[in-house]
């Protein structure tokens, strides 16, 4: 897969998981399993990018005598997710077009019938 596309996909996957509510690293990594499995070390740079671009915010809360870092979806994060859906629809159209051209070409190529 095109790396830009893949990056977009992993980011949107994480954003989508945050729609249900704020979450933390371990839970997010577990939750990706239902959508697009990512190991914790794959998830880390994704979270970091999302923070840097402002799509998610973080805060720390005390949990069981220690600090746990939570991630929360921002307005920019919502927008990124919706933009992705639009882009994907456009991609679908381009894809259909390419397949169509390919099929036409295939027809030309294998069109000549041959009797065994």
């Amino acid at each position, binding site marked *: 897969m095109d*790396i830009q596309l893949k990056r977009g996909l992993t980011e949107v996957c994480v954003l989508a998981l945050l729609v249900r509510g704020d979450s*933390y*690293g371990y839970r997010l990594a577990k939750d990706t399993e239902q959508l697009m499995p990512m190991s914790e*070390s*794959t998830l*880390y740079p994704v*979270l970091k990018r999302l923070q840097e671009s402002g799509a998610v915010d973080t805060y720390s809360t005390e949990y069981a005598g220690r600090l746990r870092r939570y991630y929360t979806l921002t307005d920019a994060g919502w927008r990124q997710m919706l933009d992705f859906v639009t882009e994907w629809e456009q991609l679908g159209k381009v894809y259909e077009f390419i397949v169509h051209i390919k099929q036409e070409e295939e027809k030309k190529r*294998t069109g000549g*019938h041959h009797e*065994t």
Partner: protein
Amino acid sequence: MKREEYLEKLQLTLEESDFGPVEEAISYFNEILEDRIQEEGMDEEAAIATMESPEEIARKLVHSKSTQQATSAEKMAADEPFVSGIRIINARADQVRRMVIRDRNMRLNLRGWQRDDIEIRHPETEKIRYDFTLEDGVLSLIRQAPEFTFNLLLFKSSQPNMREVNIFVPYELAAELDLRTSNAKLDAKNVACWGTATYATSNATIDLDNVGAKTMQVKGSNGSIKLEKIQVKHTLTATNSNARIKAEKILAPEALTLKTSNGKITVEQITTDALELTSSNGKIEGVLPGRQSDYTIRSQTSNSKNSLPRQQDGGSKSLSVRTSNSRIDIRFEEKL
């Protein structure tokens, strides 16, 4: 390994690997580790055993950082471990004496073309992976076992070409063919191979049109088998279950054997010395060349009509027809 030891090792590995500031990463992995211990009720060592190794983590983080920094698209593609898409394999036909394809849930299309080389186009993603080898004249493409199941409808429906493997070969191929898949259609057209040919799938249709081989075996289940314009040098055997078999314009000099259950068998324009048609709960019908007296016949059905004698000897060709709870309707037609 204890937690301190693991984190220390991770820190050292990251520091050595030109990753940049490691503090934040360490606190992230420390938190993951603590959550694993608390939420899964594991002890420290067990939790660490299920974590990725410090080397693995460092490799991935550095990889992700370097791809992020890469500006040219080519550099990005080179850094990407799996680039999904359609892979194209080319081979010289004269270097292949046997072609083996083992797939699943993937449609196989075999096509004869005017070129004199072999080309295979298959999808490859992180989930759909193949092992390809060409050794001692054996070309094999084997689908790897799945690591996990993953089902996002969006991708399934929008990418039909990611669900088929296209195999192009010269019209005349001096090789054996062994193509198997499951839960998906197998479709072959305009190919004559000089060796044995095996075509198999399950829960889907097999459609062979204008195909030849030395001997041919076709195996299906729960999906119809359609054979049209098939020429073999020796024998053709097709077995199916819970679905029909239709055979038309077949030349199988030594023997043609068609077996199914709970499905109809239809034959037309068949040339063979030994025809065996077996079903159960399925009608058997068709037209055979020549006169009825040309055949030595054994036929049997139950609870239904039979157009053939149960036993007739003296014919030069053999004809065996068996079913149950269904009609046998075989007629004979002399060619002009």
